[in-house]
Protein backbone atom coordinates (compact mmCIF):
# COMPACT_ATOMS: atom_id res chain seq x y z
CA UNK A 1 0.00 0.00 0.00
CA UNK A 2 1.37 3.37 -0.92
CA UNK A 3 2.11 5.63 1.99
CA UNK A 4 4.00 8.36 0.24
CA UNK A 5 3.32 11.69 1.83
CA UNK A 6 2.65 14.35 -0.77
CA UNK A 7 5.87 16.12 -1.59
CA UNK A 8 5.79 19.87 -1.73
CA UNK A 9 5.96 20.91 -5.37
CA UNK A 10 9.48 21.89 -6.35
CA UNK A 11 10.20 25.55 -6.93
CA UNK A 12 10.71 25.33 -10.68
CA UNK A 13 7.38 23.69 -11.36
CA UNK A 14 5.64 26.12 -9.12
CA UNK A 15 7.09 29.09 -11.00
CA UNK A 16 6.05 27.55 -14.27
CA UNK A 17 2.63 26.93 -12.86
CA UNK A 18 2.46 30.51 -11.73
CA UNK A 19 3.26 31.86 -15.20
CA UNK A 20 1.35 29.45 -17.37
CA UNK A 21 -1.17 28.23 -14.83
CA UNK A 22 -3.09 31.48 -14.96
CA UNK A 23 -5.90 30.91 -17.43
CA UNK A 24 -5.72 34.44 -18.81
CA UNK A 25 -2.19 34.04 -20.19
CA UNK A 26 -3.43 32.79 -23.56
CA UNK A 27 -5.78 35.74 -24.17
CA UNK A 28 -3.09 38.09 -22.91
CA UNK A 29 -0.62 36.82 -25.49
CA UNK A 30 -3.23 37.31 -28.21
CA UNK A 31 -3.79 40.88 -27.05
CA UNK A 32 -0.04 41.49 -26.98
CA UNK A 33 0.36 40.04 -30.47
CA UNK A 34 -2.32 42.34 -31.87
CA UNK A 35 -0.81 45.36 -30.16
CA UNK A 36 2.62 44.57 -31.63
CA UNK A 37 1.21 44.07 -35.12
CA UNK A 38 -0.81 47.28 -35.01
CA UNK A 39 2.05 49.28 -33.54
CA UNK A 40 4.25 48.12 -36.39
CA UNK A 41 1.73 49.03 -39.08
CA UNK A 42 0.83 52.45 -37.75
CA UNK A 43 2.90 54.25 -35.11
CA UNK A 44 -0.15 56.32 -34.23
CA UNK A 45 -1.58 53.20 -32.58
CA UNK A 46 0.72 53.58 -29.57
CA UNK A 47 0.06 57.29 -29.12
CA UNK A 48 -1.16 57.81 -25.55
CA UNK A 49 -4.20 59.57 -26.95
CA UNK A 50 -5.13 56.54 -29.02
CA UNK A 51 -4.56 54.05 -26.18
CA UNK A 52 -6.75 56.21 -23.99
CA UNK A 53 -9.45 56.18 -26.69
CA UNK A 54 -9.36 52.40 -26.81
CA UNK A 55 -9.87 52.22 -23.05
CA UNK A 56 -12.78 54.64 -23.25
CA UNK A 57 -14.35 52.61 -26.02
CA UNK A 58 -13.98 49.46 -23.93
CA UNK A 59 -15.68 50.88 -20.85
CA UNK A 60 -19.32 49.97 -21.53
CA UNK A 61 -18.84 46.46 -22.88
CA UNK A 62 -16.03 45.95 -20.38
CA UNK A 63 -18.32 46.68 -17.46
CA UNK A 64 -21.31 44.78 -18.85
CA UNK A 65 -19.00 41.82 -19.39
CA UNK A 66 -18.28 41.72 -15.64
CA UNK A 67 -21.89 40.88 -14.96
CA UNK A 68 -21.95 38.52 -17.91
CA UNK A 69 -18.87 36.74 -16.52
CA UNK A 70 -20.57 36.18 -13.17
CA UNK A 71 -23.65 34.77 -14.86
CA UNK A 72 -21.67 32.55 -17.25
CA UNK A 73 -19.55 31.23 -14.38
CA UNK A 74 -22.74 29.83 -12.88
CA UNK A 75 -23.36 28.08 -16.21
CA UNK A 76 -26.02 30.63 -17.13
CA UNK A 77 -26.19 33.25 -19.85
CA UNK A 78 -27.59 36.76 -19.80
CA UNK A 79 -29.31 38.03 -22.93
CA UNK A 80 -30.82 41.03 -21.16
CA UNK A 81 -27.48 42.75 -20.53
CA UNK A 82 -27.92 45.53 -23.06
CA UNK A 83 -31.62 46.02 -22.44
CA UNK A 84 -31.15 46.42 -18.67
CA UNK A 85 -28.32 48.88 -19.21
CA UNK A 86 -30.35 50.91 -21.72
CA UNK A 87 -33.25 50.87 -19.26
CA UNK A 88 -30.90 52.53 -16.76
CA UNK A 89 -29.91 55.27 -19.21
CA UNK A 90 -33.53 55.96 -20.18
CA UNK A 91 -34.81 56.12 -16.62
CA UNK A 92 -31.97 58.32 -15.38
CA UNK A 93 -32.19 60.55 -18.45
CA UNK A 94 -35.95 60.86 -18.32
CA UNK A 95 -35.96 61.70 -14.61
CA UNK A 96 -33.23 64.31 -14.94
CA UNK A 97 -34.97 65.89 -17.90
CA UNK A 98 -38.14 66.02 -15.80
CA UNK A 99 -36.20 68.01 -13.23
CA UNK A 100 -35.41 65.41 -10.59
CA UNK A 101 -32.13 65.51 -8.67
CA UNK A 102 -29.47 63.85 -10.85
CA UNK A 103 -27.95 61.78 -8.02
CA UNK A 104 -31.39 60.56 -7.03
CA UNK A 105 -32.26 59.83 -10.67
CA UNK A 106 -29.11 57.82 -11.31
CA UNK A 107 -29.49 56.03 -7.98
CA UNK A 108 -33.06 55.12 -8.81
CA UNK A 109 -32.05 53.96 -12.29
CA UNK A 110 -29.35 51.72 -10.84
CA UNK A 111 -31.89 50.40 -8.36
CA UNK A 112 -34.30 49.53 -11.18
CA UNK A 113 -31.50 47.73 -13.06
CA UNK A 114 -30.70 45.80 -9.90
CA UNK A 115 -34.36 44.91 -9.56
CA UNK A 116 -34.38 43.71 -13.18
CA UNK A 117 -31.42 41.47 -12.36
CA UNK A 118 -33.21 40.30 -9.25
CA UNK A 119 -36.34 39.35 -11.15
CA UNK A 120 -34.28 37.39 -13.67
CA UNK A 121 -32.54 35.69 -10.76
CA UNK A 122 -35.83 34.87 -9.02
CA UNK A 123 -37.32 33.25 -12.10
CA UNK A 124 -34.15 31.26 -12.67
CA UNK A 125 -33.58 30.14 -9.11
CA UNK A 126 -37.12 29.78 -7.78
CA UNK A 127 -38.92 28.45 -10.86
CA UNK A 128 -35.77 26.74 -12.15
CA UNK A 129 -36.32 28.16 -15.63
CA UNK A 130 -33.32 28.11 -18.00
CA UNK A 131 -31.40 31.42 -17.87
CA UNK A 132 -31.40 31.58 -21.66
CA UNK A 133 -35.19 31.69 -21.79
CA UNK A 134 -35.67 33.96 -18.81
CA UNK A 135 -33.23 36.60 -20.01
CA UNK A 136 -34.55 36.36 -23.56
CA UNK A 137 -38.02 37.03 -22.17
CA UNK A 138 -36.77 39.96 -20.13
CA UNK A 139 -35.01 41.30 -23.22
CA UNK A 140 -38.34 41.30 -25.05
CA UNK A 141 -40.26 42.87 -22.20
CA UNK A 142 -37.67 45.58 -21.69
CA UNK A 143 -37.38 46.35 -25.40
CA UNK A 144 -41.09 47.07 -25.47
CA UNK A 145 -41.00 48.95 -22.18
CA UNK A 146 -38.11 51.10 -23.40
CA UNK A 147 -40.00 52.13 -26.50
CA UNK A 148 -43.02 53.02 -24.39
CA UNK A 149 -41.09 55.00 -21.77
CA UNK A 150 -39.11 56.96 -24.33
CA UNK A 151 -41.98 57.19 -26.82
CA UNK A 152 -39.75 55.54 -29.36
CA UNK A 153 -37.06 58.13 -29.73
CA UNK A 154 -33.62 58.92 -28.43
CA UNK A 155 -33.16 62.06 -26.39
CA UNK A 156 -30.22 64.10 -25.20
CA UNK A 157 -29.31 63.98 -21.52
CA UNK A 158 -27.48 67.12 -20.48
CA UNK A 159 -26.54 66.88 -16.86
CA UNK A 160 -23.08 67.34 -15.36
CA UNK A 161 -23.51 64.53 -12.83
CA UNK A 162 -24.77 61.97 -15.31
CA UNK A 163 -22.00 62.96 -17.71
CA UNK A 164 -19.37 63.03 -14.96
CA UNK A 165 -18.00 59.59 -15.79
CA UNK A 166 -17.01 60.98 -19.19
CA UNK A 167 -14.86 63.71 -17.65
CA UNK A 168 -11.16 63.28 -18.06
CA UNK A 169 -8.20 63.41 -15.74
CA UNK A 170 -4.50 63.16 -16.42
CA UNK A 171 -2.55 60.28 -15.05
CA UNK A 172 1.10 60.71 -15.91
CA UNK A 173 0.57 62.03 -19.42
CA UNK A 174 -2.25 59.57 -19.93
CA UNK A 175 -5.73 61.03 -20.30
CA UNK A 176 -8.33 58.84 -18.66
CA UNK A 177 -12.02 59.31 -18.08
CA UNK A 178 -13.47 58.63 -14.65
CA UNK A 179 -15.48 55.95 -16.42
CA UNK A 180 -12.27 54.09 -17.22
CA UNK A 181 -11.20 54.31 -13.58
CA UNK A 182 -14.60 53.08 -12.42
CA UNK A 183 -14.31 50.16 -14.83
CA UNK A 184 -10.94 49.15 -13.39
CA UNK A 185 -12.26 49.64 -9.87
CA UNK A 186 -15.23 47.38 -10.61
CA UNK A 187 -12.93 44.76 -12.07
CA UNK A 188 -10.80 44.95 -8.93
CA UNK A 189 -13.73 44.62 -6.55
CA UNK A 190 -15.45 41.79 -8.39
CA UNK A 191 -12.11 40.01 -8.92
CA UNK A 192 -11.59 40.13 -5.18
CA UNK A 193 -15.07 38.78 -4.52
CA UNK A 194 -14.60 35.98 -7.02
CA UNK A 195 -11.14 34.90 -5.98
CA UNK A 196 -10.75 35.81 -2.34
CA UNK A 197 -14.15 35.21 -0.79
CA UNK A 198 -16.44 32.32 -0.06
CA UNK A 199 -19.06 33.92 -2.27
CA UNK A 200 -16.77 33.67 -5.30
CA UNK A 201 -15.76 30.11 -4.49
CA UNK A 202 -19.40 29.17 -4.41
CA UNK A 203 -20.05 30.87 -7.77
CA UNK A 204 -17.44 28.57 -9.29
CA UNK A 205 -18.73 25.54 -7.39
CA UNK A 206 -22.30 26.10 -8.58
CA UNK A 207 -21.17 26.51 -12.18
CA UNK A 208 -19.03 23.43 -11.91
CA UNK A 209 -21.41 21.05 -10.25
CA UNK A 210 -24.63 22.46 -8.83
CA UNK A 211 -25.59 19.13 -7.28
CA UNK A 212 -22.29 18.95 -5.42
CA UNK A 213 -22.73 22.53 -4.30
CA UNK A 214 -26.13 21.65 -2.88
CA UNK A 215 -24.82 18.53 -1.15
CA UNK A 216 -22.02 20.40 0.59
CA UNK A 217 -24.60 22.82 1.93
CA UNK A 218 -24.25 25.83 -0.37
CA UNK A 219 -27.65 27.54 -0.66
CA UNK A 220 -27.59 27.27 -4.44
CA UNK A 221 -30.79 29.15 -5.20
CA UNK A 222 -30.03 32.03 -2.92
CA UNK A 223 -26.55 32.21 -4.35
CA UNK A 224 -27.82 32.32 -7.92
CA UNK A 225 -30.15 35.09 -6.90
CA UNK A 226 -27.22 37.08 -5.53
CA UNK A 227 -25.30 36.58 -8.78
CA UNK A 228 -28.11 37.97 -10.98
CA UNK A 229 -28.75 40.74 -8.50
CA UNK A 230 -25.07 41.71 -8.58
CA UNK A 231 -25.07 41.53 -12.37
CA UNK A 232 -28.09 43.87 -12.49
CA UNK A 233 -26.30 46.31 -10.21
CA UNK A 234 -23.26 46.24 -12.48
CA UNK A 235 -25.43 46.87 -15.57
CA UNK A 236 -26.93 49.84 -13.71
CA UNK A 237 -23.47 51.27 -13.09
CA UNK A 238 -22.82 50.54 -16.76
CA UNK A 239 -25.77 52.80 -17.58
CA UNK A 240 -24.09 55.66 -15.73
CA UNK A 241 -20.86 55.02 -17.62
CA UNK A 242 -22.79 54.90 -20.91
CA UNK A 243 -24.34 58.31 -20.22
CA UNK A 244 -20.89 59.64 -19.45
CA UNK A 245 -19.56 58.36 -22.72
CA UNK A 246 -22.47 59.55 -24.84
CA UNK A 247 -24.92 61.97 -23.20
CA UNK A 248 -27.84 60.47 -24.99
CA UNK A 249 -30.50 57.99 -23.95
CA UNK A 250 -31.54 55.81 -26.85
CA UNK A 251 -33.99 52.91 -26.64
CA UNK A 252 -32.41 51.44 -29.77
CA UNK A 253 -28.88 51.41 -28.35
CA UNK A 254 -26.78 48.42 -27.33
CA UNK A 255 -28.53 45.86 -29.50
CA UNK A 256 -25.26 43.98 -29.87
CA UNK A 257 -24.23 44.33 -26.23
CA UNK A 258 -25.39 40.79 -25.45
CA UNK A 259 -23.19 39.15 -28.04
CA UNK A 260 -20.36 41.62 -27.49
CA UNK A 261 -20.22 40.93 -23.78
CA UNK A 262 -20.47 37.18 -24.32
CA UNK A 263 -17.67 37.47 -26.90
CA UNK A 264 -15.41 39.25 -24.40
CA UNK A 265 -16.12 36.61 -21.77
CA UNK A 266 -15.50 33.70 -24.12
CA UNK A 267 -12.35 35.14 -25.72
CA UNK A 268 -11.16 35.77 -22.18
CA UNK A 269 -11.18 32.03 -21.58
CA UNK A 270 -14.30 31.59 -19.46
CA UNK A 271 -16.19 28.42 -20.23
CA UNK A 272 -19.78 28.70 -21.44
CA UNK A 273 -20.43 25.53 -19.46
CA UNK A 274 -19.71 27.38 -16.23
CA UNK A 275 -17.29 27.05 -13.37
CA UNK A 276 -14.11 27.80 -15.29
CA UNK A 277 -12.41 31.03 -16.18
CA UNK A 278 -12.10 34.37 -14.58
CA UNK A 279 -12.49 38.09 -14.67
CA UNK A 280 -9.00 39.08 -15.79
CA UNK A 281 -9.55 37.09 -18.95
CA UNK A 282 -12.79 38.98 -19.57
CA UNK A 283 -11.05 42.35 -19.29
CA UNK A 284 -8.43 41.15 -21.74
CA UNK A 285 -11.16 39.77 -24.01
CA UNK A 286 -12.94 43.13 -24.05
CA UNK A 287 -9.66 44.88 -24.78
CA UNK A 288 -8.89 42.48 -27.61
CA UNK A 289 -12.15 43.42 -29.31
CA UNK A 290 -11.49 47.13 -28.78
CA UNK A 291 -7.88 46.94 -29.95
CA UNK A 292 -8.89 45.01 -33.04
CA UNK A 293 -11.48 47.53 -34.13
CA UNK A 294 -9.29 50.54 -33.46
CA UNK A 295 -6.15 48.99 -34.89
CA UNK A 296 -7.83 47.88 -38.11
CA UNK A 297 -9.23 51.36 -38.63
CA UNK A 298 -5.81 52.92 -38.10
CA UNK A 299 -4.35 50.48 -40.57
CA UNK A 300 -7.08 51.38 -43.03
CA UNK A 301 -8.34 47.83 -43.26
CA UNK A 302 -11.94 46.95 -43.90
CA UNK A 303 -13.69 46.52 -40.54
CA UNK A 304 -15.13 43.29 -41.89
CA UNK A 305 -11.85 41.78 -40.73
CA UNK A 306 -12.75 42.63 -37.19
CA UNK A 307 -15.80 40.40 -37.26
CA UNK A 308 -13.85 37.68 -38.98
CA UNK A 309 -10.97 37.71 -36.51
CA UNK A 310 -13.31 38.01 -33.54
CA UNK A 311 -15.28 35.06 -34.89
CA UNK A 312 -12.13 32.97 -35.22
CA UNK A 313 -11.05 33.91 -31.71
CA UNK A 314 -14.40 32.90 -30.26
CA UNK A 315 -14.27 29.53 -32.00
CA UNK A 316 -10.65 28.96 -30.95
CA UNK A 317 -11.47 29.85 -27.35
CA UNK A 318 -14.50 27.57 -27.19
CA UNK A 319 -12.61 24.74 -28.91
CA UNK A 320 -9.76 25.02 -26.40
CA UNK A 321 -12.23 24.95 -23.57
CA UNK A 322 -13.94 21.87 -25.00
CA UNK A 323 -10.63 20.08 -25.51
CA UNK A 324 -9.47 20.77 -21.99
CA UNK A 325 -12.81 19.62 -20.58
CA UNK A 326 -12.85 16.48 -22.65
CA UNK A 327 -9.35 15.54 -21.53
CA UNK A 328 -10.55 15.40 -17.96
Amino acid at each position, binding site marked *: *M*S*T*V*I*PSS*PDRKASLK*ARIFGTPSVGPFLVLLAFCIIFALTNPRFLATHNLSIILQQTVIIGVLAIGQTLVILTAGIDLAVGAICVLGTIIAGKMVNLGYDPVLSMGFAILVCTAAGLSAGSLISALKLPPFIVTLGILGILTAALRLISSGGAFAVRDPFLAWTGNTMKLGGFVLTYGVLIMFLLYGVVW*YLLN*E*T*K*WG*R*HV*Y*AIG*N*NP*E*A*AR*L*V*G*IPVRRHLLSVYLGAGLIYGIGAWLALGRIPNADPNAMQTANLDSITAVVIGGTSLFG*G*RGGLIGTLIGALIVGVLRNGLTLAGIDPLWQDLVTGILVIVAVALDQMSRRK*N
Partner: protein
Amino acid sequence: MSDVNSPMAPATLSAPVVLEARNVIKTYGHVTALAGVDFELRAGEILAVVGDNGAGKSTLIKALTGALHPTSGEILLDGIPVHFKGPLDARHAGIETVYQDLAMAPALDIASNLFLGRELRAPGILGSVFRRLDKKRMRQEAQRAMSDLKFRLPSIDNAVEALSGGQRQGVAVARAALFARKLVIMDEPTAALGVRETGQVLELIRSIRERGLAVVLISHNMPNVFDIADRIHIMRLGRRAAVVTPKTHSMNDVVAIMTGAATA
Protein backbone atom coordinates in the same frame (compact mmCIF):
# COMPACT_ATOMS: atom_id res chain seq x y z
CA MET B 1 -32.42 -7.67 19.19
CA SER B 2 -34.00 -11.06 19.24
CA ASP B 3 -33.57 -11.85 15.59
CA VAL B 4 -29.88 -11.14 15.73
CA ASN B 5 -28.16 -13.85 17.64
CA SER B 6 -24.80 -13.94 15.97
CA PRO B 7 -21.69 -13.41 18.07
CA MET B 8 -19.99 -10.07 17.56
CA ALA B 9 -16.39 -9.00 17.44
CA PRO B 10 -15.15 -8.27 20.97
CA ALA B 11 -13.95 -4.76 20.17
CA THR B 12 -17.31 -3.60 18.94
CA LEU B 13 -19.39 -5.48 21.48
CA SER B 14 -18.19 -3.33 24.29
CA ALA B 15 -18.17 -0.05 22.32
CA PRO B 16 -21.12 2.31 22.81
CA VAL B 17 -23.75 2.70 20.10
CA VAL B 18 -23.18 5.89 18.10
CA LEU B 19 -26.10 5.86 15.73
CA GLU B 20 -29.25 3.87 16.13
CA ALA B 21 -32.51 3.49 14.29
CA ARG B 22 -35.58 1.87 15.88
CA ASN B 23 -38.44 0.47 13.85
CA VAL B 24 -38.09 3.05 11.08
CA ILE B 25 -40.87 2.91 8.48
CA LYS B 26 -40.92 4.83 5.23
CA THR B 27 -43.81 4.52 2.81
CA TYR B 28 -44.51 6.29 -0.46
CA GLY B 29 -48.24 5.93 -0.95
CA HIS B 30 -48.79 2.18 -1.19
CA VAL B 31 -45.12 1.41 -1.62
CA THR B 32 -43.22 0.51 1.50
CA ALA B 33 -39.52 1.29 1.23
CA LEU B 34 -38.64 0.64 4.86
CA ALA B 35 -40.85 -1.77 6.78
CA GLY B 36 -39.67 -1.14 10.33
CA VAL B 37 -35.93 -1.35 10.10
CA ASP B 38 -33.52 -1.36 13.04
CA PHE B 39 -29.96 -0.18 12.79
CA GLU B 40 -27.05 0.02 15.14
CA LEU B 41 -23.60 1.49 14.60
CA ARG B 42 -20.99 1.20 17.34
CA ALA B 43 -18.09 3.54 17.94
CA GLY B 44 -14.93 2.68 16.07
CA GLU B 45 -16.37 -0.01 13.86
CA ILE B 46 -16.76 -0.44 10.14
CA LEU B 47 -20.31 -1.56 9.51
CA ALA B 48 -21.09 -2.75 6.02
CA VAL B 49 -24.66 -2.42 4.78
CA VAL B 50 -25.46 -4.95 2.08
CA GLY B 51 -28.64 -6.01 0.36
CA ASP B 52 -30.17 -6.70 -2.99
CA ASN B 53 -31.37 -3.85 -5.18
CA GLY B 54 -34.59 -2.51 -3.69
CA ALA B 55 -33.93 -4.00 -0.28
CA GLY B 56 -33.95 -0.50 1.21
CA LYS B 57 -30.24 0.23 1.61
CA SER B 58 -30.23 3.69 0.18
CA THR B 59 -33.58 4.63 1.72
CA LEU B 60 -32.16 3.64 5.09
CA ILE B 61 -29.06 5.73 4.53
CA LYS B 62 -31.13 8.71 3.40
CA ALA B 63 -33.24 8.42 6.54
CA LEU B 64 -30.09 8.32 8.69
CA THR B 65 -28.57 11.41 7.03
CA GLY B 66 -31.70 13.52 6.96
CA ALA B 67 -32.10 13.34 3.18
CA LEU B 68 -35.63 12.03 3.77
CA HIS B 69 -38.03 12.00 6.70
CA PRO B 70 -39.17 8.59 7.99
CA THR B 71 -42.91 7.98 8.16
CA SER B 72 -42.41 6.67 11.67
CA GLY B 73 -39.71 5.34 13.92
CA GLU B 74 -36.85 6.81 15.86
CA ILE B 75 -33.29 7.76 15.09
CA LEU B 76 -30.86 8.28 17.95
CA LEU B 77 -27.41 9.80 17.89
CA ASP B 78 -25.37 8.90 20.99
CA GLY B 79 -28.60 7.70 22.53
CA ILE B 80 -30.43 10.97 22.02
CA PRO B 81 -33.36 11.12 19.56
CA VAL B 82 -32.65 13.38 16.60
CA HIS B 83 -34.81 14.81 13.83
CA PHE B 84 -32.68 15.89 10.88
CA LYS B 85 -34.44 18.35 8.57
CA GLY B 86 -31.83 17.85 5.88
CA PRO B 87 -28.30 16.68 5.14
CA LEU B 88 -26.93 19.89 6.65
CA ASP B 89 -28.42 19.04 10.05
CA ALA B 90 -26.76 15.65 9.95
CA ARG B 91 -23.48 17.29 9.07
CA HIS B 92 -23.76 19.71 11.91
CA ALA B 93 -24.34 16.74 14.20
CA GLY B 94 -21.02 15.23 13.11
CA ILE B 95 -22.18 12.83 10.40
CA GLU B 96 -20.32 13.10 7.09
CA THR B 97 -21.40 11.39 3.90
CA VAL B 98 -19.26 10.41 0.92
CA TYR B 99 -21.69 10.40 -1.98
CA GLN B 100 -21.34 8.01 -4.85
CA ASP B 101 -20.77 10.88 -7.29
CA LEU B 102 -18.44 12.44 -4.70
CA ALA B 103 -20.02 15.92 -4.73
CA MET B 104 -16.89 17.62 -6.04
CA ALA B 105 -16.43 20.73 -8.15
CA PRO B 106 -14.04 19.27 -10.73
CA ALA B 107 -12.40 22.50 -11.86
CA LEU B 108 -11.57 23.60 -8.32
CA ASP B 109 -8.38 22.46 -6.65
CA ILE B 110 -8.17 19.88 -3.90
CA ALA B 111 -8.04 22.30 -0.99
CA SER B 112 -11.05 24.22 -2.33
CA ASN B 113 -13.01 20.99 -2.62
CA LEU B 114 -12.03 19.82 0.86
CA PHE B 115 -13.35 23.05 2.32
CA LEU B 116 -16.25 23.55 -0.10
CA GLY B 117 -19.13 25.09 1.83
CA ARG B 118 -16.95 25.29 4.95
CA GLU B 119 -14.30 27.72 3.83
CA LEU B 120 -12.01 29.24 6.42
CA ARG B 121 -11.85 32.97 6.69
CA ALA B 122 -8.71 34.94 7.36
CA PRO B 123 -8.21 36.10 10.95
CA GLY B 124 -8.83 39.70 11.99
CA ILE B 125 -10.39 42.48 10.00
CA LEU B 126 -9.46 40.91 6.66
CA GLY B 127 -11.77 38.03 7.42
CA SER B 128 -14.51 39.74 9.39
CA VAL B 129 -14.96 42.85 7.27
CA PHE B 130 -13.39 41.97 3.94
CA ARG B 131 -14.56 38.35 4.07
CA ARG B 132 -11.18 37.22 2.80
CA LEU B 133 -10.54 33.50 2.59
CA ASP B 134 -7.56 32.02 4.41
CA LYS B 135 -6.26 30.14 1.40
CA LYS B 136 -2.92 29.40 2.97
CA ARG B 137 -4.40 27.74 6.02
CA MET B 138 -6.89 25.76 3.95
CA ARG B 139 -4.07 24.56 1.78
CA GLN B 140 -1.98 23.55 4.78
CA GLU B 141 -4.86 21.76 6.43
CA ALA B 142 -5.72 20.00 3.21
CA GLN B 143 -2.11 18.91 2.92
CA ARG B 144 -2.20 17.67 6.48
CA ALA B 145 -5.49 15.85 6.06
CA MET B 146 -4.13 14.00 3.05
CA SER B 147 -0.91 13.05 4.81
CA ASP B 148 -2.81 12.01 7.94
CA LEU B 149 -4.61 9.50 5.78
CA LYS B 150 -1.29 8.57 4.17
CA PHE B 151 -2.84 9.23 0.81
CA ARG B 152 -0.58 9.92 -2.09
CA LEU B 153 -1.28 12.84 -4.43
CA PRO B 154 1.00 14.47 -6.99
CA SER B 155 0.22 17.98 -5.74
CA ILE B 156 -2.39 19.54 -3.53
CA ASP B 157 -2.78 22.33 -6.10
CA ASN B 158 -4.20 20.05 -8.76
CA ALA B 159 -7.72 20.54 -9.95
CA VAL B 160 -9.83 17.58 -8.91
CA GLU B 161 -10.61 16.80 -12.55
CA ALA B 162 -6.90 16.13 -13.13
CA LEU B 163 -6.96 13.30 -10.57
CA SER B 164 -7.63 9.63 -11.17
CA GLY B 165 -10.86 8.08 -9.93
CA GLY B 166 -9.13 6.63 -6.89
CA GLN B 167 -7.47 9.92 -6.06
CA ARG B 168 -10.80 11.73 -6.28
CA GLN B 169 -12.34 9.16 -3.99
CA GLY B 170 -9.41 9.76 -1.67
CA VAL B 171 -10.13 13.49 -1.61
CA ALA B 172 -13.80 12.86 -0.91
CA VAL B 173 -12.94 10.49 1.93
CA ALA B 174 -10.39 12.93 3.31
CA ARG B 175 -13.05 15.65 3.30
CA ALA B 176 -15.41 13.44 5.29
CA ALA B 177 -12.64 12.45 7.69
CA LEU B 178 -11.59 16.06 8.17
CA PHE B 179 -15.03 17.20 9.29
CA ALA B 180 -16.69 14.10 10.74
CA ARG B 181 -16.84 14.11 14.50
CA LYS B 182 -18.78 10.89 14.94
CA LEU B 183 -19.17 8.83 11.84
CA VAL B 184 -18.69 8.68 8.08
CA ILE B 185 -21.18 7.14 5.67
CA MET B 186 -19.80 5.96 2.33
CA ASP B 187 -21.96 5.07 -0.63
CA GLU B 188 -20.27 2.53 -2.92
CA PRO B 189 -16.82 4.09 -2.59
CA THR B 190 -15.10 1.46 -4.72
CA ALA B 191 -17.76 1.01 -7.41
CA ALA B 192 -15.87 2.77 -10.20
CA LEU B 193 -12.35 1.83 -9.24
CA GLY B 194 -9.71 -0.63 -10.43
CA VAL B 195 -8.09 -3.23 -8.21
CA ARG B 196 -5.13 -1.15 -7.07
CA GLU B 197 -7.19 1.96 -6.40
CA THR B 198 -9.80 -0.09 -4.55
CA GLY B 199 -7.02 -1.27 -2.28
CA GLN B 200 -5.99 2.31 -1.62
CA VAL B 201 -9.51 3.36 -0.75
CA LEU B 202 -10.00 0.40 1.58
CA GLU B 203 -6.80 1.42 3.29
CA LEU B 204 -8.23 4.92 3.68
CA ILE B 205 -11.35 3.56 5.29
CA ARG B 206 -9.21 1.64 7.77
CA SER B 207 -7.27 4.76 8.66
CA ILE B 208 -10.52 6.56 9.34
CA ARG B 209 -11.44 3.82 11.77
CA GLU B 210 -8.01 4.15 13.36
CA ARG B 211 -8.85 7.74 14.11
CA GLY B 212 -11.79 6.56 16.20
CA LEU B 213 -14.59 7.33 13.75
CA ALA B 214 -17.28 4.83 12.96
CA VAL B 215 -17.86 4.03 9.31
CA VAL B 216 -20.99 2.90 7.49
CA LEU B 217 -20.02 1.30 4.19
CA ILE B 218 -22.67 0.65 1.57
CA SER B 219 -21.30 -1.77 -0.97
CA HIS B 220 -22.18 -4.42 -3.48
CA ASN B 221 -18.68 -5.78 -3.52
CA MET B 222 -18.63 -8.82 -1.21
CA PRO B 223 -14.86 -9.39 -1.21
CA ASN B 224 -14.35 -5.77 -0.19
CA VAL B 225 -16.94 -6.04 2.52
CA PHE B 226 -15.36 -9.19 3.88
CA ASP B 227 -11.94 -7.63 3.65
CA ILE B 228 -12.75 -4.59 5.72
CA ALA B 229 -16.03 -4.75 7.66
CA ASP B 230 -16.24 -5.52 11.36
CA ARG B 231 -19.90 -6.34 11.08
CA ILE B 232 -22.30 -6.74 8.19
CA HIS B 233 -25.86 -5.41 8.33
CA ILE B 234 -27.96 -7.31 5.80
CA MET B 235 -31.10 -5.63 4.40
CA ARG B 236 -33.98 -7.59 2.92
CA LEU B 237 -37.46 -6.36 2.00
CA GLY B 238 -37.13 -3.11 3.91
CA ARG B 239 -35.99 -4.75 7.12
CA ARG B 240 -32.78 -5.81 8.76
CA ALA B 241 -32.52 -9.48 7.97
CA ALA B 242 -29.46 -10.05 10.10
CA VAL B 243 -26.20 -8.65 11.40
CA VAL B 244 -23.27 -11.01 10.96
CA THR B 245 -19.49 -10.80 11.06
CA PRO B 246 -17.01 -11.92 8.44
CA LYS B 247 -15.56 -14.27 11.02
CA THR B 248 -18.72 -16.22 11.62
CA HIS B 249 -20.26 -16.21 8.16
CA SER B 250 -19.03 -16.79 4.64
CA MET B 251 -19.86 -14.75 1.57
CA ASN B 252 -22.23 -17.47 0.47
CA ASP B 253 -24.03 -17.26 3.79
CA VAL B 254 -24.47 -13.52 3.40
CA VAL B 255 -25.75 -13.83 -0.15
CA ALA B 256 -28.16 -16.51 0.99
CA ILE B 257 -29.54 -14.23 3.71
CA MET B 258 -29.80 -11.34 1.25
CA THR B 259 -31.84 -13.38 -1.16
CA GLY B 260 -33.97 -15.00 1.51
CA ALA B 261 -32.56 -18.47 0.83
CA ALA B 262 -31.38 -18.69 4.42
CA THR B 263 -31.70 -16.96 7.74
CA ALA B 264 -28.86 -16.05 10.03
